């Protein structure tokens, strides 16, 4: 559903309102259900993204898996349970790391300009993803409680 929603947002709003909803799922499952759920989500989410991509298969899977590990690391060492600001800061960090990791992996296969990566992808994606984090996490939490995932 998150993938379909990303699709629809990209059609409706173009490049400027494209939050990384799949990454939010990975972080959410890590915080609320642990690394195993998070890794599973990362692999499935990456598979969806990579299936549509035309460059090397696996870039999204790898970057999502690394994001799942990074979330676990941040959770172990810095997490304060129930802190909303920590969750937002964590999403900001993880989504920044995701863009740069993805950018460097892409550079192995495609010529990219880092200034373009910053302006066209980093800023819109990181800001948009961070901005909608509280809303999405609340919604996911309600869903998780309702369907006891």
């Amino acid at each position, binding site marked *: 559903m998150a993938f379909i929603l990303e699709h*629809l947002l990209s059609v409706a709003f173009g490049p400027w309102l494209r939050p990384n909803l799949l990454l939010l799922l990975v972080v959410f499952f890590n915080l609320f259900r642990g690394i195993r759920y998070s890794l599973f989500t990362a692999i499935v989410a990456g598979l969806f993204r990579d299936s549509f991509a035309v460059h090397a298969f*696996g870039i999204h899977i790898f970057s999502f898996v690394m994001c799942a590990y990074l979330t676990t690391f941040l959770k172990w060492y810095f997490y304060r349970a129930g802190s909303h600001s920590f969750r937002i800061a964590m999403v900001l960090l993880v989504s920044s790391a995701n863009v740069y990791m993805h950018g460097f992996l892409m550079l192995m296969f495609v010529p990219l300009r880092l200034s373009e990566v910053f302006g066209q992808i980093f800023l819109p994606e990181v800001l948009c993803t961070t901005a909608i984090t509280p809303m999405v996490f609340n919604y996911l939490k309600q869903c998780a409680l309702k369907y006891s995932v």
Partner: protein
Amino acid sequence: MSRAKTKLFAYIFIIIVAFGLLFTRSSFLNPLKYTVIKGASWPVRLILVPLREAKKFLYYHRTFDEYMRLRREVNVLQARLVGLEELSRENNRLAGLLGLKRELIYSSVAANVIGRDPSKWNASIVIDKGSQDQIRVGLPVVNALGVVGKVAEVSQDSAKVILITDPGFSVAALDQRSREIGLVSGSLQGLCRMRYLTFNADVEVQDQIITSKLSSDFPEGLLIGEITRIHKDERENTAYCLIEPSVFLSQLEEVLVIITE
């Protein structure tokens, strides 16, 4: 081995497998990829149908004005065509006299767009024609307005097309007015970039860029777009132009795949 160690090995193994996937042959994973594409595409298409219909209704006036403008344009072009046909016949006759090789006439396959990559890193679409319709990797994809991209991957009944705005796309091109040659590639900005121009290259804003004879995949003379900005680098003694594609890539619904030899 302790439980903690087994877990650690499993986590490291996942990283290695995920990294190893980057270097696997793409065709080996094609069945899995196209199953996911088909599964994810149909709900999107289903939701987009009413949205598109609503848009048509909302933009009725704009569409009608556009229709009237195009009808006037067709009349003017039809008048011009009469003269051009005469010139074409004369050109054929003279080319025959000089023994020049004639341009090949290509066949084409019409295809519907059934999917689109929502990621900002790639610009690609999925079409509903595949290897069973003679589609091969590298074939040029166009529509009435110009170059759309080229086929990047093929399955039996669908194919992925890399769009001209993807950073991984490139095609030899030339300025239609000055005949300056360069290489057009995509960028993350959603525009194309024409590179390898000399500092003094005769290029101007609003010049039209077309595919060149030097391109191995594309027939000569297909419209790519129009120059919107020129950047000159004195230190490197080079220049590059930004090109606005002639095709509205975000609104693609049907395309033509040109079947070349």
